[in-house]
């Protein structure tokens, strides 16, 4: 059993993370999200809460990054997995600092190109998956099926 940090913002990102639960739940998983109430509807309590942010909210992004680093230092995961968005990317960044293996799963909503965080994760995460075959490359992102 591995220690895993699984992160997704509220909404579609979170619903997609929940679709991966059968692969996550055999492990010791710490879940983190921006919407505690969404986690509760899936019976996930406790959950670590992160501030929602994006490229247009730099102050919140900085606070979120700090919180992500604190969370990773506390949880000490061996793997960090995120289905997006920016708060999940920050956890992957923080995961690299402690030597965790990191996986970005780009949202299935991104059918035309990877999200901005998805593009960044190609350089930061150990592995990067797209959920669309036509967006895949030989290394990053790879295509390995989708939540749909």
């Amino acid at each position, binding site marked *: 059993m591995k220690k895993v940090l699984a992160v997704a913002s509220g909404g579609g990102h979170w619903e997609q993370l929940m679709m991966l639960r059968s692969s996550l739940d055999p492990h010791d998983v710490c879940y983190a999200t921006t919407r505690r109430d969404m986690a509760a509807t899936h019976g996930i309590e406790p959950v670590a809460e992160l501030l929602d942010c994006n490229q247009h909210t730099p102050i919140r992004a900085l606070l979120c990054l700090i919180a992500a680093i604190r969370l990773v230092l506390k949880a000490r995961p061996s793997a960090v997995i995120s289905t997006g968005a920016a708060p999940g990317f920050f956890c992957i960044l923080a995961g690299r600092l402690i030597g965790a293996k990191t996986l970005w799963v780009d949202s299935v909503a991104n059918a035309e190109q990877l999200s901005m965080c998805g593009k960044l994760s190609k350089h930061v995460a150990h592995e990067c998956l797209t959920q669309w075959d036509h967006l895949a490359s030989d290394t990053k992102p*790879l295509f390995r099926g989708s939540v*749909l």
Partner: protein
Amino acid sequence: MILVTVGMQLGFDRLIRAMDEIAPTLDMPVIAQTGRGRYRPINMELHNNLDAGQFEELVADSKLIVSHAGIGTVLTAQRLRKPIVLIPRQADLNEHRNDHQLATAKQLRSRPGILVAWSTNELGVTIRKSLANSTLPHVEPQASSELLNAVAGFIERGQI
């Protein structure tokens, strides 16, 4: 009851306006979650500022969901086994920053329980079609086995 939802992020007045016109012709009440939209519906009960639990209760009580083509709503409808009619947001109408919802709707349109209205003109017909034939498979929705295996393998070995 029919639940109309536009997701948490953006308004979608084209959908709300169209549903407000269609609502009196349907044989059941229509409840609308309009997000940040400006249009105030007259023929639909307005519910905003719902937390996730309250929203799920509405989904559970509904006979049909009418929604933007957002993944969160689609997956919630699947999980609670509700039929859903999708109408994709369009970038040329300033409804989203790009046309990813069109791609999502194309990908989803052949799935059981999901119908797509490509414009508001098709909305009424599509809703009636869904209400007349709303059988959903009783399978627990989950990601493809390929994706689940990739994630499981990654956790074990640190690589895909």
